[in-house]
């Protein structure tokens, strides 16, 4: 495997080609926040909280650290005024669906980035559903059961996680879906109880 050298913040790093910025940063102890990432699952790139600044051939741009593969000579900045402001706004946007009283990872990120969870929430008349559609439950289900009892339906703001009735039998009550949930949507409703057979009510998104 080819090794490339890059720089994350002030650290010079060597990493295997094909590694993502997120993984490379972790190797040297630099944490990049995520909401839709889960080690072992394929990167999804939906929450955008892991956005970082990169500099390549003198040009700077914003990329998602969970998906961007390391390159020779790449320069990465994981925290800056620009990045912090982006993350703050993204968390505030996530709260539109998660709700200002969301618990879990999103709550701790909000305090770290000084995000006001009610800032945009108050502008949208729709009820929050405590789900940010990160897809972790769906993807984790596929990983655990080789198929998925749950999946996405609808497009755009109507997108939601639903149970496929014809696939209900796949649910092995493994509980992984609520373990991975970053908003506390699943665990807050049912605690450690298996979500099945109420999973549709629990995970149902915007009506």
């Amino acid at each position: 495997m080819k090794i490339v050298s890059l720089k994350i913040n002030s650290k010079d790093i060597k990493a295997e080609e094909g590694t993502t910025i997120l993984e490379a940063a972790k190797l040297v102890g630099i944490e990049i926040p995520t909401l839709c990432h889960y080690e072992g699952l394929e990167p999804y790139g939906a929450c955008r909280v892991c956005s970082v600044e990169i500099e390549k051939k003198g040009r700077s741009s914003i990329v998602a650290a969970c998906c961007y593969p390391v390159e020779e000579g790449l320069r990465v900045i994981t925290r800056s005024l620009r990045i912090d402001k982006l993350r703050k706004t993204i968390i505030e946007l996530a709260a539109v669906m998660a709700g200002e009283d969301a618990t879990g990872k999103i709550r701790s990120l909000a305090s770290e980035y000084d995000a006001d969870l009610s800032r945009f929430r108050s502008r949208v008349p729709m009820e929050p559903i405590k789900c940010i559609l990160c897809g972790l439950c769906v993807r984790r289900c596929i990983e655990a059961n080789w198929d998925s009892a749950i999946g996405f339906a609808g497009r755009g703001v109507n997108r939601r996680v639903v149970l496929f009735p014809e696939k209900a039998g796949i649910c092995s009550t493994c509980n992984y879906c609520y373990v991975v949930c970053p908003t506390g949507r699943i665990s807050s409703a049912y605690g450690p109880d298996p979500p099945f057979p109420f999973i549709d009510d629990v995970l149902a998104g915007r009506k």
Partner: protein
Amino acid sequence: MEDIKHISSPEDLEKLRQEITAKREPSKPIISVCVSTGCIALGASRAMEAFKAELKKEGLEDKVEIKETGCLGFCEQGPRVIIYPEEICYFKVKPEDVPEIVSKTILGKQVVERLLYMDPTTGKRAKKIEEVPFYKYQLRLLLENNARIDPKNIEDYIVLGGYRALAKSLFEMTPEQVVEEVMKANLRGRGGGGFPAGLKWETTRNAPGEPKYIIINCDEGDPGCFQDRSLMEGNPHSILEGFIIGAYAIGVHEGYVYVREEYPIAVENISTAIRHAEEYGLLGENIMGSGFSFRIKVHRGAGAFVSGESSALMTAIEGKVGEPRPKYVHTAVKGIWDKPSCLNNVKTWANIPLIILKGAKWFRSIGTEGSSGTNIFSLVGKVNNTGLVEVPMGITLRDLIYKIGGGIRGGKRFKAVQTGGPSGGFIPKEYLSLPVDFDELTKVGSMMGSGGMVVMDEDTCMVDVAKFFIDFLLEESCGKCIPCREGLMVLSNVLNDICEGRGKDEDIQTIEDIAETMKEASLCALGRTAANPVFTSLNYFRDEWEQHIREKRCPAKVCKALINYYIDPKKCQACLLCLRECPVEAVHGGKDQVHWIDQKKCDKCGTCYEICNFDAVKKLSGEPIPPPPPEGTKPIRKRGK
């Protein structure tokens, strides 16, 4: 096509071309009727039937040919008919006009004056298509042949020099030379991104992994845009020829045509073209005897705006939901099933045969330094002439809107033009001299995009129109990433508040924060450009936003919640028209009594404003409404009424 010739060498192709030419008499009259979607909607099929019946009646079936052809872009004037060899062009042809056309023009060689296009400003009639102001300033490289070709007849394309570029590529050039030529031509992706096509071809060519794929993108989801459809309906072989040349250059043996299901005629015509090309040996195994093989499949899109985005389109071809995925490794390297996949727009592919035949140098002589060639724009909105226009890159917005578009409808003032589809920016009048090319449009905060061009006049509210496009994009966002999905959701609500008079001072900051986040952090180009309408509207028309938020006033008098209808008692003639038509019975007064509007009842539908013959109904915004006139006030009669 009684006996199909299987072409197995370039000489065969030339021989066939000569045979077809010899078979055709140049003096035989041809009636070319546009049967593209636009003209069909205006009744072209009925005109077509009438022509057939009339020729039969007159016993002219063998002496006159009827040709079903493609779109020339001036759809509002359809159905369009051209009579060859004189090239007399008739517009708005109805079945009842047909006997006159046959007797006068076909038999009598005379012109039916009233069916010619009349320039509304000069009153002059145009006999040939080039004389119509709408066409005079165009340079139609791609659309030119649409009126001469029956898209279902491959011989029509061959007789005009079709597949000559393919023969040249296969037998006189190496694949590398073809890529080199496209690179030198500086052909930039016509789907909107403007990425150099040659570079993309080279990337896919050099990328590891087999099989590789190439794709024609005909998803065209922008409202009001139909350039790709018109090309695919009218001249499918030109796209196919470019596609096969591309396959040879990149070294690909499998290709996809992604065309939206909502384009039934395009689907039919491209499928027919593929079948005919295969039958003639121009596609499939051992093309023209060159040893090169290439197969094409047609994939019909399920109709989502976002599926036009290349990674979403490729996901859809794989049979999954058409959602974008991260593209940090280009689709040219990792596309369909993670194999190298080169996707180009319909117009990009259609340019290839021209570049191969006439050379990169010729192509670069058209357009600007950074953007060569022509582009097809869909000019719509408040201009006198709407339709598809093909012009060299670098034409100014002013020439497009005033020379080709014939200026603003109803003599109103120009306010802005939106280029590039729903996520394009609004360009104000200060930039009317802007040369239209990829780089210049980006500099002013808009983009080339699909080539959409929506012209807005002084009666357009820039806050309202920004809201309109944000709402469109909200409907079409796939919902995968947070900045795009939630950003559009919040923007839509904030804009709605502003338009309904609930705007707050901090709203502009809120909008800017969200727009910035969407632009920088969204997953795909839809989200990254979705805030363009808001950005440019705020940049160029900020005073209008402030008037909405601070003064609760809509200067263009569009936003319903911020306007009131009022009847000027000095002008009202008490004709009872608005009083009767008002759906909520908000108009008071009576016969011989000046009318007035009960503001509490009025739901601002605008009916009274539209129908008043005396210009007595006014729209007020941000100003006090005068009290109603005393009961029984008599109208001030106009002389002669």
